[in-house]
C-alpha cells in the first residue's frame, strides 16, 4: 500500500517538557486512520507538530510526506504541499472575511504549485458548492473568520477550509467534540465527500462516536506520547467499551 505520511520515532517537546515520546505512525493513501487517546495523551501535540507550529519543538525522529522530509519546513510550506489541520480550537481573525481568506489561501497553495490564481467566478462557484455540502448559509462567506462563530460553526468552517484546499493529508483534531448529532452528521458528510484514492485522513478523537459516520480503515491508540496499539475499526468499539484504563493496563503504560 502506498504511504502518504510516515512518522518515525517522533519526539516533541512543549516548553521543554517531552510530550511525544517516540511516536510512529504510517498513513496510507486513500485510507482513513483514527488516532484515539485520553485527554492529555498528546493528540493535539501530534497535530500541531505535523502542521509545523513553531512552539512544538521536534527533538528527534522524522516525518516524511511522499518521501520528503517536512520537519524543516514552515507551516505555510507544509500546507502548500497538502498537509491540512482542522484545529480543535480555531483562532478568530477580526475583519478578514471567510471568502477573502479562503481565496488568499487557495491562491497561495496554487502559486506554490505553479498554478495560476483561481478566477473569481470559479472561486465563488467552488465556494458555494462546498458550502452547500456542509449546509452552510451563503452569508457565511462574508462573515469574519471564526469571529463570533458558535462551536459548531467553527468546526464546520474548518471542514469548509479543508474542502477548499483539497489536501493530501487531512488531520482532524477533535473535530467531533462539542458537536450535536446533526452537526456531527453534516461534518462527517463533508469529510466523506473529501475521501479519494489520493488523500489520507487522520481523525484524532477522544470518542468513538464520529467513527460511526466516518468509517476508519485503521485505528491507533495514543497513550502518553506513543502509539501503543493499532488495529481495525473493531478496536475503537473495544476501547469505547473497556475505557482507556484497560489500554494502560494492557500495554503497561504508567497512568
Amino acid at each position, binding site marked *: 500500500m502506498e504511504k502518504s505520511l510516515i512518522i518515525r520515532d517522533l519526539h516533541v517537546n512543549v516548553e521543554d517538557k517531552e510530550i511525544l515520546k517516540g511516536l510512529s505512525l504510517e498513513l496510507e493513501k486513500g485510507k482513513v486512520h483514527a488516532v484515539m487517546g485520553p485527554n492529555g495523551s498528546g493528540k493535539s501535540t501530534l497535530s500541531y507538530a505535523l502542521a*509545523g507550529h513553531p512552539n512544538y519543538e521536534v527533538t528527534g525522529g522524522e516525518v516524511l510526506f511522499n518521501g520528503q522530509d517536512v520537519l524543516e519546513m514552515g507551516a505555510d510550506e507544509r*500546507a502548500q504541499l497538502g498537509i491540512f489541520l482542522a484545529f480543535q480550537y480555531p*483562532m478568530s*481573525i*477580526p*475583519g478578514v472575511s471567510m471568502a477573502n481568506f479562503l481565496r*488568499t489561501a487557495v*491562491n*497561495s497553495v496554487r502559486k*506554490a504549485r505553479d498554478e495560476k490564481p483561481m478566477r473569481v467566478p470559479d472561486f465563488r462557484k467552488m465556494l458555494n458548492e462546498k458550502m452547500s455540502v456542509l449546509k452552510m448559509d451563503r452569508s457565511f462567506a462574508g462573515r469574519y473568520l471564526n469571529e463570533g462563530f458558535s462551536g459548531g460553526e467553527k468546526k464546520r468552517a474548518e471542514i469548509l477550509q479543508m474542502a477548499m484546499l483539497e489536501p493530501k493529508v487531512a488531520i482532524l483534531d477533535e473535530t467531533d467534540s462539542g458537536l450535536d448529532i446533526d452537526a456531527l452528521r453534516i461534518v462527517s458528510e463533508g469529510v466523506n465527500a473529501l475521501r479519494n484514492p489520493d488523500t489520507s485522513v487522520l481523525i484524532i478523537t477522544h470518542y468513538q462516536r464520529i467513527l460511526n459516520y466516518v468509517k476508519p480503515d485503521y485505528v491507533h491508540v495514543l497513550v502518553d506520547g506513543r502509539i501503543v496499539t493499532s488495529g481495525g475499526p473493531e478496536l475503537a468499539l473495544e476501547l469505547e467499551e473497556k475505557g482507556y484504563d484497560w489500554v494502560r493496563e494492557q500495554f503497561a503504560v504508567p497512568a
Partner: protein
Amino acid sequence: MAITEDQLRQEQEQYKYGFSDPENYVFKSKRGLSAEVVEEISYMKGEPDWMRDFRLKSLKHYNKRPMPQWGGGGLLNEIDFDNIYYYVKPSDRAENSWEDVPDYIKDTFDKLGIPEAEKKFLAGVGAQYESEVIYHNLQKDLEAQGVIFLDTDSALKQYPELFKKYFGTIIPPNDNKFAALNSAVWSGGSFIYVPEGVKIELPLQAYFRINAENMGQFERTLIIADKGSQVHYVEGCTAPTYSTDSLHSAVVEIVALEGSRVRYTTIQNWSKNVYNLVTKRAAAYKDATMEWVDGNLGSKLTMKYPAIYLMEPGAKGEILSVAFAGHGQHQDAGGKVVHVAPHTTSTITSKSISKEDGRSSYRGLLKVHPEAEFSKSNVRCDALLLHENSRTDTYPYIEIENDRVDIGHEATVSKVGEEQLFYLMSRGVSEAEAYSMIVTGFIEPIAKELPMEYAVELNRLIQLEMEGSVG
C-alpha cells in the same frame, strides 16, 4: 485580500513616491522665518492689507508660543526651523488644464496617477506642488450650480467677502503654535463653497506634493457647506525621501451649516523625513453631519487631532482615524469632539498599528458643555502591536460637565498573536501575508467606510508598509 505577494515584490522599494524633480522655480524664499519673509510672501501674492496684517500678527503669536513638549516626545525640538524654506513658488498660476501645467510637474502627478483618477471617479481635482496650487479643475455642471472649488489664494482674490467672513474663524491664529505658523506663512490649499441644497455626489480631491528638500508646506483649506448641501473632500499627500527633514503644517477649517453633510478624508503617505503638524477643525450647526476620516501613514512625526465642535442641536460628528507607525516613526493622532449644544452626538473610532520600534499614540478629547444635555458620545480606540518593541499609548481626556449624557469609552491593545499567525500560515499563507491579513482585518471597520478606490489605496499602502516587516 487586495494584493498578491508578486505585486508586492514588484513594489519592493518601500516608498515609491520617493523620487524628486530638479528644482526649476519661479521664486524661492530664503531659508528661515522673519517678518521680512512673511511680508515678501504677502507681497508676491498681491494680497490685501488685512491679510498681510493677519500674517504678521500670527507671526507674533508663533514667536511668543513655546514649542509644545507633549505628543512629539521631544522630536519637535529636532526641527531646525531656521533651515526651512517657508515659501517656494514653482509656477506662475494654477492652471485648469493638465496640458498647461509645466511638464516636470505634470510628470510627477502622472506618476502619482492623479489625472487618471480625475477622469475616473472625481468631481474635481486640485494639485499643489510646494507652496502653490498648480492645477485646479471642477466639473462644469457643479460650477454651473454655483459650487466654488479653487485654490485658497485665488479664492481670496475672487470671493473676498465670503472668504473674509469665515477665514480664521474656526481656527484663530493664536490657537496653537503651528496654527500660528500656518497663519503667518500659509499658501495654497483648497477653498470650497457648496451652495444651499447642492449635493456633490463624487468626491473632490486635492493632492499635496512636497518636492524640494527642507521645504515647508503650509496649505490652508477652508470648506463652507451651506444649508442642506453635501460634499466629500479627499486629500492625498506625498514627498520625496531626503536625508534632512521637511515640514508640513496645514490648517483646515470647515463650516457645516444647518442640515449639511461634510466628509473630509485624508490618505497621507508622507516620506519618513516629514514632520506633519496639522490643525483641523470643523463647526457643525443644526442637524449637520461632519465626518473626518483620517489615514495617517508615513512621516517622521505626525501630530494631528481632527476636531469637531457640535454647535447646535441635532449636530453629529464622527471621527475615524487610522495610524500606522513603522520603524523610527511616531504617530500621535486621535480626535477631539466638543459638545456645545444639547442633543448632539459623536463617535470617535481610532485604530493604530505599531510596527518594529514604531510608536503610535491615541490622544483624544471629549468635552461636553453644561448646556449640552442629552448628548451622546462613543469613543473607541484599538491598538495593534506587531512586534515586541512596538509601542502604543492612550491619552483619552474626557471632560463632562453635565449628568444627562450618554458616554461610552472603550480602549483595547492587542498583539499579533503567534497562534493567529500559525493558524493563517497553516492554510498555506506566507508569514508576510498572514501579518498583512491581520492588519488589514484590523482596519477593516474604517476601510469599509471609504469609497472603494480609497479603501483599496489604504490597504495597498498598508501592505507596502508590511512588506519586509517580518523577522
